[in-house]
């Protein structure tokens, strides 16, 4: 009791803080931070950043677990990166093009790339990496490569197994640039100490706890050719892994960290009215979507029932109830920001909340009160979303029960449409293209049982395959898929969560540089 009383004292906050123009910033790519002195590019000496995801090992041959760790691009460079407008721009690769419509690509790398030990990077190093990654079989993109071979010191040719828009970009982003000789000379194969071409040198790594970097003085790339999001304006940066959300907030308050990355909004909102801190609102690349089982024996096989469920859910209510108000309503199954997303969809009627319409459709569907099971993973936010959805469905007379499973069980079950009627998912795209997300969800030939919900839909396949090729990835074809998904209520996008990056004003950031998700690209930001 004494502890509670002591801790309750003196917890006031500062005056109102206007949020930096985060929505505009997400579109523009960078914004001048308020209250700073004249903009400059001299780096801040040292920054400590709190992050939620860490790596147990620094090996470059890794799977998708922890793939979006914030320090990944500081540790290793890739052949290409995405800029703040989601466009793929060169990094170590100078250019890439396809002469046969998207199956075979010729890639050229810069001829002056060097790692921190002075090793020159050649095309043979890249070819070796891709082949080793194929053997490791951890990341699916590498198994889509049919062959890769060097075509000169600084050129290589990669042939994909099939022409799929976005696959080369996915490959370029996931290919880390390292020297084969440096890797083979490493006693632990880069598990705890890395030699890379990055502008930063790794200084210290404590598995599961922290990783520190110092800026190199001999970075190979010319400043004018460095992508804005890849610039190195921080002299020393330490990433501290803090998995507990409230501890992230506490670390920011105590000064243990200067910047909290992707902090949970429930924790981050306490900093909103505090002018000692600045908040940058970004968005997750995924949304919360619901997918209907494609198994023909299920009640949701009825189009009217599916549409009724879409109409009875208030997406803004889901955002307010499950995401503490920090999110945007979706207008497609896929999240906004993916390449190919048409902003015109945002002004369409996308099953806007309408209880009367829902009841009308339920009556037409012949639904007799059967129990519908809603599959969800056991993570806190998913459960909240599921509970809210259940409430909305029960309000219109749909008998919905929750089937909550731990992540591993959920991952194994979600592809089997026999095990549920509706599944909540959190789907995005590693390549940044709509077609890539669609292909793993709606292609009837993707899995033994059909698509990702055991659906077999020839018309869907026909429309999907048209968008896969470079020439076929057109606005019209994309719109056809969007319309078919919407009209047939095959899946429904509800809410795209926002995330907060919060930094202490004392660090003197004069220019915020944002990535394609509207989140801070810390090393590229400018400081006093």
């Amino acid at each position, binding site marked *: 009791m004494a502890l*509670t009383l002591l801790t309750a004292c003196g917890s006031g906050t500062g005056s109102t803080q206007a949020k930096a123009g985060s929505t505009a910033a997400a579109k523009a790519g960078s914004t001048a931070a308020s209250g700073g002195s004249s903009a400059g590019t001299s780096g801040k000496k040292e920054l400590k950043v709190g992050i939620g995801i*860490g790596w147990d090992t620094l090996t470059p041959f890794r799977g998708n*677990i922890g793939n979006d760790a914030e320090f990944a691009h500081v540790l290793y460079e890739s052949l290409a990166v995405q800029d703040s407008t989601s466009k793929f721009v060169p990094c170590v690769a100078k250019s890439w093009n396809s002469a046969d419509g998207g199956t075979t690509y010729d890639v050229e790398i810069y001829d002056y790339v060097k790692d921190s030990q002075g090793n020159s990077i050649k095309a043979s190093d890249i070819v070796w990496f891709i082949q080793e990654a194929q053997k490791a079989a951890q990341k699916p993109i590498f198994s889509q490569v049919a062959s890769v071979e060097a075509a000169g010191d600084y050129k290589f040719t990669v042939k994909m197994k099939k022409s799929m828009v976005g696959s080369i970009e996915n490959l370029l982003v996931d290919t880390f640039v390292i020297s084969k000789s440096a890797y083979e000379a490493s006693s632990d194969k880069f598990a705890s100490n890395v030699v890379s071409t990055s502008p930063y040198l790794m200084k210290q790594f404590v598995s599961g706890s922290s990783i520190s970097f110092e800026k190199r003085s001999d970075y190979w790339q010319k400043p004018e050719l460095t992508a804005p999001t890849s610039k190195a304006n921080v002299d020393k940066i330490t990433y501290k892994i803090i998995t*507990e959300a409230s501890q992230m907030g*506490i670390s920011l308050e105590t000064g243990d960290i200067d910047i909290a990355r992707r902090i949970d909004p429930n924790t981050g909102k306490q900093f909103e009215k505090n002018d000692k801190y600045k908040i940058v609102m970004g968005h997750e690349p995924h949304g919360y979507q619901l997918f209907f089982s494609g198994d023909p024996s299920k009640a949701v096989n009825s189009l009217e029932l599916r549409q009724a469920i879409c109409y009875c859910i208030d997406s803004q209510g889901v955002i307010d109830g499950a995401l503490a108000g920090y999110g945007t309503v979706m207008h497609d199954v896929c999240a906004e920001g993916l390449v190919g997303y048409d902003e015109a969809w945002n002004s369409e009627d996308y099953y806007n909340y309408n209880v009367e319409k829902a009841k009308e459709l339920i009556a037409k569907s012949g639904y007799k009160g059967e129990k519908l099971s809603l599959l969800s993973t056991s993570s806190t936010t998913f459960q909240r979303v599921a509970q809210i959805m259940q409430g909305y469905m029960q309000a219109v007379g749909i008998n919905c029960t929750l089937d909550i499973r731990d992540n591993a069980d959920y991952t*194994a079950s979600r592809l089997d449409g026999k095990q549920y009627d509706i599944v909540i998912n959190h789907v995005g795209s590693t390549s940044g293209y709509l077609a890539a997300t669609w292909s793993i969800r709606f292609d009837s030939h993707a899995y033994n049982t059909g698509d990702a919900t055991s659906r077999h839909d020839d018309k869907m396949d026909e429309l999907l395959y048209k968008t896969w090729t470079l020439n076929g990835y057109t606005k019209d074809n994309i719109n056809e898929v969007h319309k078919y998904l919407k009209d047939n209520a095959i899946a429904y996008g509800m809410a795209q969560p926002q995330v907060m990056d919060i930094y202490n004003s004392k660090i003197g950031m004069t220019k915020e540089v944002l990535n394609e998700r509207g989140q801070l690209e810390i090393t590229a930001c400018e400081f006093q």
Partner: protein
Amino acid sequence: MARYVVKRLLWLIPVILGVTVLVFTLMSFCPGDPAQIILGSTATQEMLDAKRTELGLNQPYLIRLGSFIDQIFIKHQMGNSWSTGMSIAASIRERMPRTFMLTIVMMIFSFGIGIPLGVMAATHQNKWQDSVSMIFALIGISIPSFWLAMLLVILFSIKLGWLPALGIGGIQYYIMPALAGSTGGIASAARQTRSSMLDVIRADYITTARSKGVPERQVIMRHALKNALIPIITMAGTHFGKTLGGTMVLETIFAIPGMGSLIISAVNNRDYPVVQIGAIYMAILFSLCMLGVDLLYAAVDPRIKAQYAGRKRAKKNG
């Protein structure tokens, strides 16, 4: 005595084998697909099938169990984590000392505070000292450690700035986690000590010692407490095991990368080798701890020491 120790060490073998089979079986029949988790949502059926074959998941249970036992106990190869690719031996070597350190500090708090509390309660039975101690014990058992952890952080890190809120480093990083995790142990130790002491305090030899004019402090510490220690040592042994295996919540809150978080993450990712080998390590540690408890009995009570050596002498003397 040496023979007793060797016999107990030999008993470790069937215990460890039993733990291995049990954990392997439980993980094998847990729902969830490691291949799907490793490869993620972009994996096609072909990739999933290939991964399952690579991990040996398509083989029958007995063959997989046999391979695992062969790999661990005969070839002494722990292999790599399925989800991170990191050497399991290296992971455990790095993380076990932190969990062990946290456990030791928690034990020191639990028994360093719990035993004196219990002695005070027993020697002042039915007085205010007894009531205060038992109320403290009740509160200690009732408070959730994660809630107390956050309160301690707010007080000692934010308000007072005395201790770091999280992370690893020197002993100061372990004080708050250990304090948060030891309230239950303090409470249990206090109650057990009180109960044992009350049994002993009423014994004739205590009355005799007092009649002989031995100072009360000596009566309590040298005569009463020493004889009351056996159940306390037993409790300490089982508490050590529980604490060693139950640090996951505190490790998450205080960002301590220890064995608890490693195993929980491995369970969630269905990383079978890490879970199995982690459980084996914990079982070995716990078994050694119980051996230590038995040896402590002998150190505290000469009758038990004689018993350990007694069977051999009895055989000798016919």
